[in-house]
Each structure stands twice: as C-alpha cells, then as structure tokens.
C-alpha cells in the first residue's frame, strides 16, 4: 500500500496540480473570509440571501468560533476542488491508458484503488489546512479595520472551534472526493466526471432542494453542506452520508475489481 501511496503522490505533487489546487483553495477561503469582513456594514449584508439568509455580525465574529466563519463557509467550494481532484486523478488513468501500466506493476486492484484513495485524502487534508490558514490569516488581517475584537480567537474555545471546523470541512471534502472518485471510475473520463459531479452538486441538487424541501435530508450535496458548516441535524447528516459513501465505495471498488481494462 505504501508503494502505491508514494507513486500516487509523485503525480499529485506535479507543480501545476499541487500549487494550483492549494492556491485555489487558499484564495477561495481568503476571498470568502474577506467578503464577510469587508461587507459587514453593507446594506445587503455579508451572507447569502434567501430564506436561509444569515447576517454575520461583529458580535458573532468576535466569538471564539468567529475566526472560523469564513473557513466554514468555504467548505462547499473546497468540496468541489476535492471532487475535481479525485475525479480527474481517477478517470485520467482510464483516458490516458495508464491504468494498464499501473496494473501490470501492481495487479492487486483493491490495493491500488485504496492506495490512490488514501493518497488523495492526504492531499485534500493538506488543501484544507492551507484553506484554514489563509482564512484565519485574512480574518486577523481584516479584524482591526472591521472593528472586530480578536481576544476570544486566542482562547481554548477558539482552538476547539478551529479543530471542530477543520474536522467538519475535511470530512465533507472526503465525501465530495469520494463522489468524484466514483464518477471517475463509472465514467472513465475526467471531463464527464467533473462536469456531471459539479453540475449535480451545484445546480441539480439546488433545484431539487428548492422545489422539494424534504430532499435536503438525503441529497448527498445537501448533507455534506450540513456537515461542512457543522449545522443543525449534524449527527443525522453524518450517519446518512456515511452510509451513502460506504455504499458508493463498495460499488466502485466492485466495478474497479471486476471490470476488464480494455482501453
């Protein structure tokens, strides 16, 4: 397994992928955090509009968990990055034809798949750390101008909130990545896997959820969003998404093990 992990990291550390992805997640987290602080006094508020609109006030930002609000809000976008990385790294083995080389050197397909999965999870863990650091750094940078007190951000409660939020976003990112990997194996094309995955999570699910509120309790993207934000019904969402992901992993592992490698 360790050989597969190391081999996979040789691909993941490719500068355009490695620095490109880390820059993207860092930039997105920093931008979302910056909007929350910069628009704190804007008439339209600093959070999304609609039925679930939530205005983030100075008082909320000054709480121990205030330092994490920007980071937690960027969870869904981090998830999209995770989905794209997992889908591309898996599907490209089929589209480039490199899978046959890998299987000749490592014929244990389940081990190969799990090695890839674990290496991509570690990559995403690193991406979430970068996102966390950039969100916190921007929060500290803008807190003074926005008149937000940072005293509580250095408390033990704040550290607990940071760890919890990191855990939630990381779990959600693994969930998004697992969906991406499944699509990569099912579709065997990076473009199809990413476009269908992103299209479903960002567009189709939101349309379904808007039209039928009850679907938010079981649609995977909605559940992952709840986990990422650490919101209400967290426990139920975690159980539901765990079951979904286990079924997904079993399904794509079975297909990967049994399917002929004919391209």
């Amino acid at each position, binding site marked *: 397994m360790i*050989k597969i992990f190391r081999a996979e990291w*040789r691909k993941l550390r490719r500068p355009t992928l490695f620095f490109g992805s880390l820059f993207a997640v860092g930039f997105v987290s920093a931008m979302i955090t910056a909007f929350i602080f910069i628009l704190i006094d804007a008439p339209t508020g600093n959070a999304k509009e609609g039925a679930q609109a939530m205005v983030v006030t100075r008082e909320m930002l000054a709480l121990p968990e205030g330092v994490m609000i920007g980071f937690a809000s960027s969870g869904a976008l981090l998830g999209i990055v995770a989905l794209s990385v997992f889908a591309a790294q898996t599907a*490209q083995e089929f589209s480039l034809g490199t899978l*046959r080389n890998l299987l000749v050197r490592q014929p244990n397909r389940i081990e190969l798949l799990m090695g890839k999965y674990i290496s991509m999870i570690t990559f995403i863990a690193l991406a979430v750390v970068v996102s966390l650091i950039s969100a916190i750094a921007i929060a500290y940078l803008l807190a003074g101008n926005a008149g937000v007190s940072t005293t509580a951000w250095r408390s033990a409660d704040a550290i607990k909130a940071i760890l919890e939020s990191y855990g939630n976003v990381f779990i959600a990112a693994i969930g998004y990545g697992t969906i991406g990997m499944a699509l990569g194996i099912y579709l065997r094309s990076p473009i199809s896997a990413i476009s269908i995955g992103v299209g479903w999570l960002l567009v189709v699910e939101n349309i379904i959820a808007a039209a039928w509120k009850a679907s938010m309790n079981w649609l995977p993207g909605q559940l992952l969003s709840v986990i990422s934000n650490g919101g209400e019904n967290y426990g139920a969402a975690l159980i539901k998404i765990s079951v979904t992901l286990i079924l997904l992993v079993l399904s794509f592992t079975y297909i990967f093990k049994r399917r002929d490698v004919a391209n």
Partner: protein
Amino acid sequence: MAAPIISVTNLSKRYGEQVALSNATFEVPLGTICGFVGPNGAGKTTTIRILLGLISPTSGSAEVLGNSVSEPEKYLANIGAMIEGPAFYPALSGVENLKILATLGGINFSVIPDLLAKVGLSDRADSKYKTYSLGMKQRLGIAAALLPNPKLLILDEPTNGLDPAGIQEIRELLQKLATTGVTVFVSSHLLSEIEMICEHLVVLRNGEVIFAGPVKDLLQRNRPTIIAKPINGGDCQRLIALSGLRGEIIDETVHLDAPETFAPELNKIAFENGILLAQLTPVRPTLEETFFEITGGK
C-alpha cells in the same frame, strides 16, 4: 524440454456476441523470441491483455511462468510489458513517469539511467512526455517494460513510429535480451522484422490460432522455388521437362517448384544437356508471403 513460459489452452473471449478470441491454444517456449502476428482484429491484443490479467477470459485457461492468469500478482513482478503502445502522464517527464512505475513495483531507481541510455532517451529524460515524438514515446514504453529486469517481455507493436535506425536498434536490443535468457513475446505488423528475429511464431486469424510453432516449420509449408534463366530462352520448356518437376515460364525464366537443395542437381542436368544458365537462384518463401497465404490476405 523446458516448460513453456506461456501456455494457452482453449482460451476464448467474447464481448457480447462478438468473438475476440476462440479456443486459442499455443505455447511459447522459454528463452525464445516468439512473434505474435495476425491481421488487425485477429485477437492479438485481447490475448496479451488476458496474459497480463487486465481482462478475464470467457473460457479456457492460460498460464504464465507456471501461474494461472487468474492470479496475475503471482507472476507480473517478473514480466515487462507494453500493450497497445506507450501510455504515460503527459505533464510528467520521462524519468518521472518511470519513477512512478518503479515505485509501484518496488524497483530501485538506480536502474532508470541505464534503461534510458539503452533506449536512447538519456538526453530527453527530463523533458515532459507530451513533448516526445512518437518514436521517443515508444522507446519510453520499452524502457518501462524493461524496468523489472523481466524474465518475460511482452511487447505489442514495439516498433510503431520508429524510423529504420530505431527499428534496427530495437531488433538488436531484443536479440541481446534473448541471449541473456529473457523470453520475448512480440506482436508486430512488420513481418520482415519478425522473420529476422523470431525463432517461434504464433499466427492468429479471426480469433483463432492458425499456426503455432517454429518459424522454419511455417516457411516450409510454402513452396520453395528455384529460378533458372537459360541463355537461350528457347531452352526453358526443355529444362522444365528435364528437371521432372512442376514449373512455369515467366519472362524467359523458369520457375521450378523445388527445394533449395535441388539447385546443384538442376545445374548439373542443364550442363549435361547443353543448356547454359545465366541465372540459378533458389528462392525461399518469405514470412510475409507465407503469412498472406495462410491468413488469406493479399
């Protein structure tokens, strides 16, 4: 006789109604260079994929290095392969691509510079794969196949995209490997190349094995010819009659169905009967001619 390194028995592969391979049975002797030929769609790549554990046969069995193809993890560490042309990560360099495969196979990186030198890629080792020419990609594929210091090398069209000098280098490389005990199983459309380097041959047509054995046995199936050109064109018919063999006259030249060994006898018959020969050439059938004859091609 040593056990065959590849043994295939009644191997079949179907994709729905389509039969890719039908009851194929053949053996590849240890330590030989064995050619694997057949028209496009004959089932060569399907067979190679089964031997490498990439696809499962519909029926039949196959063994590689004494292990069933259903357990490829037992033998693939001793096999080098290039299937359906080279396939690597375009954004990575040649050396980085080899390192990925070496890492996966637990192979020491120290062999990589030697392999790159062997296939003539040392100068471009650090260039991205996507900048390689087709010939260079092919060479990298061969280097990747050689990574595990294999006992069996399976190559699918290894000379595709190579210029004549490159083809000659690959031919010499394969011959050199064979002298070190490596068995080479190579599919190619270049029958002249196969004839030059292979002692053994497996011929497929429409998914069926139509010949498996030594190349010389196959060549003997085709009629050898002796071409004789009398100085006096009018002697052609008389020469055929004197030889007692079947023959025909083409452009005042006699083409006799006779083995190479009959040439001195024919020369003697002609001389004793006052026929002077301007040309006496035994012609062995080429593999290409024999191949087209047995596969029904043109």
